[in-house]
């Protein structure tokens, strides 16, 4: 995050503080200790003799642990202190903080150390929307711990704060009066434990549970194991190796173990505000990461399958067979002021569930899971032709039934103005965006394969193949903007084309719904100056009515989006074009030290020479983190075929050799190699970049 904020996390527990380690939350300052979508600490301020400290530096040890180096005294430029303070903080079940104060002087020093603590127990939604709390706060001191509490009917949350050194506890914090001898030190361990109390039945978690240094070291072991289990990447372009490593570490940080996951993890959407299960984001990220960490896909399929919709519920936009959009644990969903318990308003997660199930089996050969999830896959396929066909025209459309707090746009481009005609007008609802039809086609084709090879239901396979062929024929007729040679963004409620040119065309290539005769024209548009910025594919083409290079879904480049466009180009044989998109994105990644943001500006590369980050982009974000992984697959042309892995590399100019070693799959472990061209006459710039010259 920007603005000097420091964040560390474990699953969906995270701390956002200033660079002193202090938390002073306000509506404009979203710092705090958060867990399960609730803020458990809104104030955590360290003072010595009543004065705030000065930050010398911070040391981010790992994504779950950081260290703050501080000295007393503020407000002066010149700091000459004999007292030095270290706060080392690790997130676990709350957080554990080791506070060390060193006296470098020849004289003993007496001081009053104070931690002020408070919590507003805000729901994450409230942090953004400034809503008033309806419950009551209950602060008490119990067994030498300060307990901050909040209750609303049966809803109860508490934060327990304890210290290893004895201090005076009051309802606003802890005070330590101490003397440190010359060249001596004083230490205390502070434990902040979050507790969710359910109607007096589930009791508070034990104090200092699974917290502290031991927790941090087991997390370190876990991270090392994660990195060791992933394939190794070797390349003559160092930037790609560091981007790959960054992606793996960030993906580890973004893992989230929902209670239903049996201790296993799936990718959450993004840090810090989206550390929860999102159907769409978890599926796309799992697809990107399949050649590297297939266990993410398995957990995603299991958990999303368990939560599949089973009834009609307008408030949650739930239908039988529908895959969830988002699950939240805070006070507002609990009291049904928000529908996320879970919310089902997504039109793409359901077909994509079948796509992931098939792709997972093609890589891993895990037919057991495909059999276990047959019911869910069939229900998802039924949803496509039933509940999703709002206009009775054989296409997936969406229109929210929860008009107050539901989502208007239920496709990945979910902002209000993302779906428009060329002239900028917005269509009414229902809307049938084009990529949904591609996913539906792919789900039917892949569902047919699973039906035939695993479920042994030939009749279903034949029916799905027939439906897929029919859908493809109709789609290529109804969505094709003939005078321009691309596919319309959507059909409106009257069946008219919403005719803007967009990156969605690339998702259509990925899905396979595009007639072979139309693919070349589509690829030409994707790689043309209106969509390809030099870094990636713009979400909306330059020249469209609503085009804005820093508009969320109307002109920015989304690395996740572009990575699927590259996969789509590759699928239709446009290998050089796919490599060019990969080159642009991987160059951009280098500017962000290997961490691609959610989105960056759609400005022409030759104009800015720098990928301009979208102002409030969430980072790291799971499917941006997954993009380099998918690009590695795309460049090497990795494709499972039966029990084998096909390798058909086409590398961008500038990469001499690329190796991905120990790729896990149904073949055991296998290595993939690629050789490329290096332009020896390339001008020497400050940094070596791949795709600087536009083809």
């Amino acid at each position: 995050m920007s603005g000097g904020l420091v964040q560390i996390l474990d699953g969906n527990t995270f701390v956002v503080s200033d660079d002193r380690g202090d938390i002073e939350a306000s509506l404009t300052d979203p710092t705090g200790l958060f867990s399960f979508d609730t803020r458990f600490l809104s104030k955590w301020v360290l003072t010595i003799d009543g004065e705030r400290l000065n930050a010398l530096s911070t040391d981010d040890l790992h994504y779950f642990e950081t260290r703050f180096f501080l000295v007393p005294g503020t407000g002066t430029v010149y700091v000459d202190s004999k007292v030095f303070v270290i706060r080392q903080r690790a997130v676990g079940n709350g957080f554990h903080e080791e506070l060390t104060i060193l006296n470098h002087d020849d004289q003993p020093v007496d001081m009053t150390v104070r931690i002020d603590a408070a919590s507003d127990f805000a729901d994450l939604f409230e942090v953004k929307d400034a809503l008033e709390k309806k419950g009551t706060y209950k602060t008490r001191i119990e067994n030498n711990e300060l307990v901050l509490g909040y209750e609303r009917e049966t809803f109860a949350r508490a934060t327990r704060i304890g210290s290893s050194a004895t201090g005076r506890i009051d309802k606003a914090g802890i005070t330590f009066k101490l003397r440190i001898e010359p060249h001596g030190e004083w230490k205390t361990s502070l434990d902040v434990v979050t507790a969710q109390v359910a109607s007096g039945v589930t009791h508070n978690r034990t104090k200092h549970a699974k917290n502290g240094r031991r927790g941090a070291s087991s997390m370190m072991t876990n991270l090392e194991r994660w990195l060791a289990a992933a394939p190794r990447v070797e390349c003559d372009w160092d930037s790609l190796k560091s981007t790959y490593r960054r992606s793996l570490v960030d993906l580890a940080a973004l893992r989230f173990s929902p209670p239903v996951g049996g201790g296993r993890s799936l990718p959450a959407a993004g840090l810090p505000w989206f550390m929860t299960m999102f159907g769409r984001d978890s599926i796309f990220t799992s697809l990107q990461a399949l050649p590297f960490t297939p266990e993410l896909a398995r957990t995603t399929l299991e958990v999303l399958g368990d939560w599949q919709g089973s009834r009609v519920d307008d408030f949650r936009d739930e239908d039988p067979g529908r895959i969830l959009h988002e699950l939240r644990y805070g006070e507002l969903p609990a009291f049904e002021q928000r529908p996320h318990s879970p919310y089902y308003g997504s039109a793409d997660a359901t077909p994509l569930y079948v796509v992931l199930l098939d792709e997972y089996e093609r890589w891993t050969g895990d037919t057991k899971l495909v059999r276990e999830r047959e019911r869910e896959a069939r229900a998802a396929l039924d949803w496509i032709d039933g509940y999703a066909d709002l206009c009775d025209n054989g296409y997936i459309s969406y229109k929210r039934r929860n008009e107050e707090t539901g989502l208007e746009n239920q496709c990945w481009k979910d902002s209000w103005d993302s779906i428009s005609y060329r002239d900028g007008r917005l269509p009414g609802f229902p809307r049938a965006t084009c990529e949904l039809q591609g996913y539906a086609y792919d789900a039917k084709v892949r569902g047919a394969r699973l039906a035939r090879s695993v479920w042994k239901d030939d009749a279903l396979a034949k029916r799905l193949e027939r439906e897929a062929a029919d859908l493809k024929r109709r789609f290529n007729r109804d969505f094709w903007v003939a005078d321009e040679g691309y596919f319309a963004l959507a059909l409106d409620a009257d069946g008219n084309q919403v005719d803007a040119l967009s990156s969605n065309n690339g998702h259509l290539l990925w899905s396979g719904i595009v007639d072979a005769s139309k693919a070349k024209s589509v690829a030409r548009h994707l790689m043309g100056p209106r969509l390809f910025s030099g870094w990636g594919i713009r979400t909306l083409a330059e020249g469209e009515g609503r085009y804005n290079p820093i508009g969320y879904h109307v002109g920015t480049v989304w690395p996740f989006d572009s990575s699927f466009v590259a996969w789509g180009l590759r699928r239709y044989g446009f290998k050089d074009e796919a490599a060019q998109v990969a080159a642009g994105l991987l160059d951009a990644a280098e500017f962000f030290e290997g961490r691609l943001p959610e989105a960056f500006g759609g400005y022409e590369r030759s104009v800015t020479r720098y990928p301009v980050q979208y102002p409030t982009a969430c980072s790291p974000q799971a499917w941006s983190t997954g993009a380099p992984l998918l690009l590695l697959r795309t460049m090497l042309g990795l494709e499972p075929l039966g029990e084998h892995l096909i390798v058909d590399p086409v590398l961008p100019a500038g990469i001499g050799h690329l190796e991905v070693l120990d790729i896990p799959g149904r073949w055991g472990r296998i290595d993939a190699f690629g050789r490329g061209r290096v332009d020896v006459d390339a001008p020497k710039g400050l940094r070596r970049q791949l795709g600087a010259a536009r083809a």
Partner: protein
Amino acid sequence: MADASTQFFEGLGSRGHEAHLEGANGTLRIELTNGKKTERWLVSVDDGDVAVSHRNDTADSTLRTRRDLFDGIARGEVNAMAAVLRGALAVEGDWELIVLFQRLFPGPPVANGATAR
């Protein structure tokens, strides 16, 4: 309609099979409190086959709540997961079984605009 809970469990028992629970195995104990009285239901699931009894036995998952709240859940008026989030329905044990079991609860009585196909 005070006895929606009993109807729910007796319905489960008499149907004897739930497609939504195919592939699932385990036992759930549901404890419904009404003042000082506690009513216990034990639901055994074996790949979709369901047996219901009042046996006081150990279970893989336990749900505990007030009887009137469960009546609301059984009528589709109360959402079970939201009730869990606000601490009105306590759950313990195997979460996966609980998530699969909650599929059996009906949706809200009036679903306007939605068309079941």
